[in-house]
């Protein structure tokens, strides 16, 4: 008993000593908490780190859109980020109202504003005669047929028709969907429901939801669909990237495919051109977004954007901000929140491309400014012309146009490149990966200095993608002999440090038992 007491005391002492040692944090301004979309998390996380240097403390956790919205109306966070707005009453099977988010949220008045824009990419793992296929092209209906399980082979006539430039292999299609609730699923199903309604109805009916079901963040699966379901963006991306999963295709944020050095399909837009989900194409597409009076989005204009550059499966997520001082928000937090919003709407958008997203176009930024004004305690918005958003000040859309205007050009020039080359980077020079790790050449560019807010440097060197391949999380760790040796050494050292004392002690004091 005494020994146990001692153990407890010792542990308590250990914890408290750690507490004392830890540096106390001086917080300049009232911290603001947010939660929600995992889809937007990568960008929000970077912006949060950027503004921390200005003394703004933002905490954002990607717990999922619905959980984020719930945390908002339950008064746990100051703001939420979500792919879809608050949902009106859900009706269950017996016709009862099962949940009514809008009613729940009524106690905390809110406004929507756009936060992160991006395209949903279709990452695939496909080989023909041992060569990686990198120039896959898909039309909306074909996409729908693939992700509804209506076509099962890669040499299906529908796919062949989209890809006249090459012979498709007789490989089985393995559509990979998200098993968890996700904004990516929500955005993709919204696109399917709008652009490939037949396929979407098929999925709905097969999975017992009735025809014409609503877009959903939980992708419907049905028995013998042939789908593989994996959790989270990295899960689906890793699954597709696994060498034994040839024939797999998934919908995922562009960044995950890029990081793994895997190609993504070019999707046919309203003008008939096949485009890649690179930043400029997404931003161009989003110029077609229309916003309702309540701040919710209408994306049909995006899907049917007739600009040849537009990537049709583009969308943006909402930030839900409080417009009253209901707890936990207060006017004291207004400046922090509003300055954070101004940062990410303007200068922060310069990093969007690097992060795998696309900058918000001017129309959405302007809408965002009007929404910020409703936040209690918000500071005044800067003039729209001084906003450092690359689509406003910079020549983002213009400079990229040259590289990507012609429909033919967007569809992967280095089509059948050797595996060492990454088509994602070759096909759109503007999208070089400056965040590739372990590559010394790019380290300096991956700056976190938010104040200077440099734009994404246009680095045409194709050397980095090679590195991306080597470090990509393709099932096995990099087999460099020295590193294996080093970590074995470290492991042995740790084991020695831990186990040597008791052994030595035991040797010195052999227990005597009579």
């Amino acid at each position, binding site marked *: 008993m005494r020994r146990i007491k001692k153990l407890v005391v010792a542990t*308590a002492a250990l914890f408290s000593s750690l507490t004392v040692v830890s540096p106390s944090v001086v917080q300049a301004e009232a911290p603001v908490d947010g939660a929600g979309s995992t889809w937007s998390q990568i960008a929000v996380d970077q912006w949060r780190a950027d503004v921390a240097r200005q003394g703004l403390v933002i905490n954002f956790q990607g717990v999922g859109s619905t959980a984020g919205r719930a945390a908002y109306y339950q008064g746990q966070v100051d703001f939420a980020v979500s792919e879809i707005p608050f949902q009106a009453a859900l009706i269950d099977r017996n016709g009862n109202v099962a949940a009514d988010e809008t009613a729940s949220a009524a106690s905390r008045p809110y406004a929507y504003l756009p936060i992160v824009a991006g395209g949903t990419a279709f990452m695939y793992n496909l080989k023909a005669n041992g060569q990686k296929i990198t120039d896959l092209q898909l039309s909306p209906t074909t996409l729908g047929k693939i992700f509804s399980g209506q076509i099962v082979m890669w040499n299906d006539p529908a796919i062949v028709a989209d890809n006249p430039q090459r012979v498709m292999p007789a490989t089985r299609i393995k559509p990979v969907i998200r098993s968890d609730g996700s904004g990516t699923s929500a955005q993709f199903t919204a696109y399917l429901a709008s652009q490939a309604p037949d396929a979407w109805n098929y999925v709905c009916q097969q999975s017992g939801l009735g025809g014409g079901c609503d877009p959903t963040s939980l992708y419907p699966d049905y028995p013998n669909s042939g789908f593989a379901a994996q959790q989270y963006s990295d899960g689906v991306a890793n699954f597709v990237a696994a060498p034994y999963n040839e024939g797999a295709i998934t919908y995922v944020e562009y960044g995950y495919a890029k990081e793994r050095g895997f190609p993504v399909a070019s999707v046919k837009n309203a003008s008939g051109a096949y485009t890649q989900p690179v930043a400029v194409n997404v931003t161009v597409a989003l110029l077609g977004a229309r916003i309702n009076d309540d701040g919710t989005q209408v994306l049909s204009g995006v899907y049917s954007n007739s600009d040849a550059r537009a990537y049709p499966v583009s969308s943006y997520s909402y930030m839900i901000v409080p417009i009253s001082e209901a707890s936990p928000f207060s006017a004291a937090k207004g400046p922090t929140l509003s300055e954070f919003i101004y940062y990410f709407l303007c200068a922060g958008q310069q990093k969007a491309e690097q992060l795998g997203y696309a900058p918000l176009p001017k129309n959405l930024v302007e809408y965002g400014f009007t929404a910020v004004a409703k936040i209690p305690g918000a500071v005044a918005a800067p003039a729209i012309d001084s906003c450092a958003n690359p689509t406003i000040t910079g020549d983002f859309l213009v400079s990229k146009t040259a590289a990507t205007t012609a429909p033919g050009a967007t569809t992967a020039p280095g089509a059948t490149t050797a595996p060492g080359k990454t088509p994602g980077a070759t096909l759109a020079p503007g999208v070089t990966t400056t965040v590739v790790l372990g590559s010394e050449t790019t380290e300096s560019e991956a700056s976190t200095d938010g104040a200077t807010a440099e734009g994404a440097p246009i680095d045409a060197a194709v050397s980095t993608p090679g590195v991306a391949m080597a470090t990509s999380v393709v099932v096995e760790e990099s087999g460099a002999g020295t590193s294996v040796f080093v970590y074995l050494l470290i492991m042995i050292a740790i084991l020695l440090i831990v186990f040597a004392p008791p052994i030595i002690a035991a040797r010195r004091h052999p227990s005597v038992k009579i």
Partner: protein
Amino acid sequence: MTTTLNTTPNNNETKIDTEERIKIRDIEMIDVIVMVGSALSAFALSYFFFQILLPVSGALGFFVCWYVFFNIISTVAVWELRGAIKAKDHLARMFIWTGGLAAVIPLILVVAYVIGKGYHSLRPQFFTQDQKFVGALSDSTEGGGSHAIVGTLQQVGIASLISVPLGITTAVYLNEVKGRLTRPLRMIIDAMSAVPSIVAGLFIYAAWILALGNQQTGFAGALALAVLFLPTVTRTSEVVLRLVPGGLREASLALGGTEWRTTSRVVLPTAKSGLVTAVILGVARVIGETAPLILTVGGAFVMNANPLSGKQDALPYFVFRLIRFPQEAQVQRAWTGALVLVIIVLVLFVIARAIGGRGPDNISRLKKRRLKRKGLA
């Protein structure tokens, strides 16, 4: 012994033993020869068969083949030499050795894997800095996880402060005191052990945060962990308390000891090493839990050393969050976090075993010193 005899002077310590002590040979030469011979012939046989059968590919398959043949051949050899009973003993020995080592192999692989993934960005500042200025685009060596380390230690510490005393006293209730609740309590604790950890988080979120109007704090996370901790520690403690021979209790009571003294001075010290195991299993259960924390601690990027107010981070949550980023730098940071978590666990357990892990008849050096101070030894 009250002897009045002449005894030789007390010079025992200085005397040198000259006798040659008998070496107890567990293994004889013939056994070694049998083993080596079996190993070699198994190698030859599997080499031969491997070319034809090829059930499993690669070195692993060869090893499996060899191992099966080795066991068969050596068992037959021992049978011939020593009879059936020895052969059975030999087979059981091989089997148990294999099983014992089989449990270690995955540990080595897992730990090696985590080290291999995590050592790149393991720098001292990982223990001193937080993630305040670190985003997805930062280099993996920037920033650190000190906020998450402090959070995890505090949450697990508070959870143990709640659960260990409560769990052990509950086990004492179940085993020593007993009452009308014993049976239902035992049943419900058994059932609780399989409740998914996320339910604990949802429960604390619904009951402590939403219903009672608290915010997400490290303490709320600790409560969720405590809910998970409690069944494990109670069940394991109960198993070890039940092993304390009843004769000891009777002996203590017969000496006029009160129930309290019997329990605190006889039962618990006897079960000490088992209780430490119980606590270790409990800590092991909760220290890596992510799911219950997502809803309860809220997560943070900056140091918050106050578990009672404000959102806090935790190492598993840190890992869980960062590993899903597309950026390699974040993924590396996550693996480093995982490595640190494993190291922390290792250190904590070694401390726990060192303080209280030995058997009851092993008097620790600490206790010896205490006894010496009291003049008892």
